[in-house]
């Protein structure tokens, strides 16, 4: 707290002790929660990834076999690449479709801005499981979409190809995380100085040039933030592949979940989790670099 120098000097010794006690009491909850629930918990996963599976909680002995198996077995390579492809597609689709909405909110929404912002972020607060379940109902063989198409006379028979495909996973995840992407982009677009746009207009710049040279570069940090908050939960998802994906859509999250469930090989599951965290770290670094590369080009 910024107390002026005189008042600090005027405080008696007892207050100094009280000050310290206050600082300690206010720091302790956060320090305890983050060191146990974040740092220690993640540290244990990292540790477990390097242990053999002997059925005990922390494994039997040190080994690199978990990582070797995860990185050399073509099955796991396929699943990891598929997860990256699906999460990448979902991220791209989500960010590209969200950008115009964020743009509208920042530049066109006028007095309805607060209401519209609330409407597009409200689904974020509804149950994720129910949103995925809704898609299962929509895409099912005897489901809403097929029956609607047949009732409308567009098709005469149910189309098999909707459910249990990677495409179903991409659509469902893109819908489930759509609301995540709008807010960061909107916040970045709000920061675009309106005077810059006016100056460019006065100097005769076309709208496309203004967008390409001013608005897009300045909003790039928001786009990167949006991409990250969509990519992270989608790359580790196991619920959507299980409900709408079918056997050809198994993702790395499903594999991790299986190791802690049916397969009962916790150290191997922990190694897979470490690999996912490393992938996310790499994506964060790339996003930061891209931010510098595109973001500074004003």
């Amino acid at each position, binding site marked *: *707290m*910024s107390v*002026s120098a005189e008042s600090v000097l005027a405080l008696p010794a007892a207050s100094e002790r*009280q*000050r310290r006690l*206050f600082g300690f009491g*206010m*720091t*302790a*909850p*956060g320090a305890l929660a*983050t060191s146990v*629930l*974040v*740092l*220690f*918990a*993640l540290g*244990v996963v990292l540790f*477990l990834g390097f242990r053999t599976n002997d059925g005990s909680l922390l494994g039997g002995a040190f080994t690199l076999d978990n990582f070797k198996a995860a990185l050399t077995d073509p099955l796991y390579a396929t699943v990891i690449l598929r997860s990256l492809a699906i999460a990448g597609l979902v991220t791209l689709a989500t960010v590209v479709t969200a950008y*115009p*909405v964020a*743009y*509208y909110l920042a*530049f*066109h929404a006028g007095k309805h801005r607060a209401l*519209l912002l*609330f409407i*597009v972020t*409200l*689904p974020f*607060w*509804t*149950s*994720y*499981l*129910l949103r995925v*379940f*809704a898609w299962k*109902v*929509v895409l099912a063989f005897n489901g*809403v979409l097929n*029956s609607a198409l047949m009732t409308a006379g567009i098709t005469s028979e149910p189309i098999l190809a909707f459910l249990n495909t990677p495409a179903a996973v991409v659509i469902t995840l893109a*819908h489930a995380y759509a609301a995540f992407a709008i807010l960061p982009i909107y916040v970045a677009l709000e920061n675009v100085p*309106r005077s810059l746009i*006016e100056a460019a*207009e006065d100097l005769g710049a076309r709208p496309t040039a203004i967008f390409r040279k001013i608005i897009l570069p300045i909003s790039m940090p928001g786009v990167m933030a949006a991409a*990250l908050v969509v990519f*992270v*939960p989608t790359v*580790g*998802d*196991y*619920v959507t592949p299980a409900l709408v994906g079918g056997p050809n859509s198994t993702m790395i999250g499903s594999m991790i*979940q299986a190791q*802690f469930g049916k397969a009962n090989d916790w150290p191997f*599951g922990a190694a897979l*989790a470490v690999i*996912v*965290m490393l992938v996310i770290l790499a994506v964060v670094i790339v996003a930061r670099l891209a931010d510098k590369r595109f973001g500074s080009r004003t």
Partner: protein
Amino acid sequence: MNPAPTSKAPWLTVYVVAYVLFLYLPIAIIPLFSFNNSIQAAFPLSGFTLEWYRSLFGNDNLHRAFQTSLIVGVSAAFLATSIGVTVGYMEVAGGTRTARVISALCRLPILIPGVIVGIALLVLVNLAGLGPSRMAIVLGHTLVALPTAVVIMRGRFSSLPRSYSEVAMDLGAHEWTTFRRIVLPLAAPAITSSFMLSFLTSFDEFIVAFFLSGAEPTLPLYVWGQLRFPKALPSVMALGTFILLASIVIATVAEIIRRRGVASDELPVTTPRPLPIS
């Protein structure tokens, strides 16, 4: 500053309307078919019924799952909000390196997929001898709700005029007194909003709870269990309608409370306002 002169963009408006429809239509399927008189969720609608809602009453498993969700949600919301208040305050008011690092760590779970949060805490609660239990889910949901709570609280604290607490301290109030009598009352709407949204995060959370639940499932876990039975789907839609309704009401009220809290700062400086100093 005047907003940039922007031309009307009818195509953009059409796009936004289509986007909002895309967001809401799949969700709207759930309440729509919860009243449909058929086990199969398909068009054309076959008739109106309240049968699926009737089937929810007197279901003991459902009742217990609801109770578990309430207990877990309130506990996790209390923990996450308490931590959010202290961490947010120390970051904004203290500004020390430690405070900033703790705040960053509190927001880190955004960058961890739920499945990893779930397994990490599963190992943790087993190490602690707790095992999968209600308490384990409370810890997991506290972690999941923490980023929201910290972001809301530090946003609120950094928008509070600093002069209020400076005046209090210059008048001889201790830091604790200043915090309790000045800062907390001014931040009360944000605290309420943080509590409600943390509760909602927990109430709707499935991915982490899946790993941490013992004998007592939460409501989303109960729903997950019912999804295996095709005959139970209409009842799931009736239950889902209640859950969606609860989420929408809680999120809306939290937003209204948060906005009122912020708006009270935006009163003109000349407006006489009772300072919460007695």
